[in-house]
């Protein structure tokens, strides 16, 4: 952690997490005693995880992270609530808005509609993993230059999907950008500038 980050002793997120602690404790106390989290699967039927929490390893932004989750936890909730990677946003939670997009093995997917246990053994990239050494990814820089956001809540999903597009198509047409980002909603309506930003990022070196 950088010195600057350390000095930020009070953040909005830390505050929200702090006031949530009481209810987390209550939930834990109310939960029935666990009867062992891994029921043994009969021979030949394969592996069974859960229903209780199981230890899994997720490879996120190049780093292997081990965490305990119940199988019902989505990749999005695991990233946001367990690994503190809150760039991917939980908006519709039904695969209809694109706010939670992350890259899995380089392809954009919706983290809200994938189970965390289902993302083991895959390479996950979130928006936090796009910048290198404090330097913004060209798509991120282009979003700022083109003023391609207003409230910014949908932006991480757009940026991640745009990065995947540019990895595949070096200089996409406006139509290709619209098609690739078609699953993302921006309620501020910044679409024209988003298309402009993605096209201006094309060909730039990261």
């Amino acid at each position, binding site marked *: 952690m950088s010195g600057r980050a350390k000095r930020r002793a009070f953040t909005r997120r830390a505050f929200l997490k702090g006031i949530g602690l009481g209810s987390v404790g209550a939930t834990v106390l109310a939960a029935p005693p666990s009867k062992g989290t891994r*029921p043994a*699967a009969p021979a*030949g*039927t*394969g*592996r*069974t*995880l*859960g*229903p*209780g929490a199981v230890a899994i390893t997720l490879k996120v932004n190049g780093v292997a992270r081990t965490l305990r989750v*119940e*199988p*019902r936890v*989505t990749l999005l909730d695991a990233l946001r609530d367990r690994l503190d990677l809150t760039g991917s946003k939980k908006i519709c*939670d*039904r*695969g209809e808005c*694109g706010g939670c*997009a992350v890259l*899995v093995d380089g*392809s*954009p*997917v*919706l983290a809200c*509609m*994938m*189970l965390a*246990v*289902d993302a083991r053994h895959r390479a996950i990239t979130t928006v936090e993993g796009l910048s290198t050494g404090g330097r913004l990814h060209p798509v991120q820089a282009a979003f700022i230059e083109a003023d391609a956001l207003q409230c910014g809540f949908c932006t991480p999903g757009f940026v991640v*999907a745009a990065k*995947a597009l540019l990895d595949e198509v070096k200089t996409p047409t406006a139509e290709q950008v*619209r*098609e*690739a980002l*078609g*699953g*993302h909603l921006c309620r501020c309506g910044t679409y024209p500038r988003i298309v402009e930003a993605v096209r201006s990022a094309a060909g730039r070196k990261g």
Partner: protein
Amino acid sequence: MRRFAFIEPPDLAAATEALARGAGKAAILAGGLDLLGEMKDRIIEPAAVVNLKTVRGLDAIRFEPDGSLRIGALATLASVAAHPRLGREYPAVAQAAQSVGSVEIRNVGTVGGNLCQRPRCWYYRSPLHKCLKKGGDVCFTTVGQSRYHAILGGGPSYIVHPSDLAPALIACDARITVVGPDGTKDLPLEQFYVLPSVRLDHETILKPGEIVTEVSLPASASADGGTRSRFLKFREKDSFDFALVSVAVALRLQGNSCSAARVVLGGVAPTPWRSKEAESAIVDRSIGPRSAAKAAAAALADASPMSHNEYKIPLARTLITRALLETADQGTGLAPS
């Protein structure tokens, strides 16, 4: 979402066994898009989820030496849409796959999942409505909003089948393979779907423990085999949406004369809706604006709209006309502006 055990079977036998042991309380996970949506809304609450992705080889797309095509149930929609030879030989299937959802959805969604997805009806999806399909005693569309519902084949439930791939595959004469406790079944995809008057709790013949493993397409339905196919979809939101109406056509043409036709509609009925009326109206005729419009009218002759979905009739007619004309290179059927 309720808690569940996550089972990773090494092979199909283990998967069917895990499903059978779950006795109706075990669900199959492929891409998971439809399943997780249902679980989040507590439409279903399985005690176990069986992940088919640990079974090897279910995602293959391969052409046989005789020119027929096999698509594994776990092939993603993106891989179907991007397969060059598939796109050349069975364009309707590639176009249908490309029309599903968004990039993110196609990267994860599978062929089997698209074919087996549950209805999008807002009453079915609503945790607050115990509709006919969920064991209640009323189809709320008959008293409520029916704007996205059936105009053909409805009753007692008026859902429409949401799959885009199914009409295209049925137009291309696809068969489906199902593996279960009783062994392997192979049947025309058209017969895989059943109307609510036959079965209310599910849209297919699938029984607990049965798994869709593959669809196969005959060489005769391919471009190389002399068939031209095309898929058109009309949606309310153009960027990504389910079909208001879709149509898939597959035609064998000699010059402009049609010797065989398959016309299948999506978004209009509780199952993919094959219109033999449209097919017999066009076979042995040359395809032009008048014959295409006649075939389209025949397809909708028996339509009975509900309170809010009469618009689907002209929409379906127009799409059928366009699909027939475009497939036969006879323009789009649109009046010049």
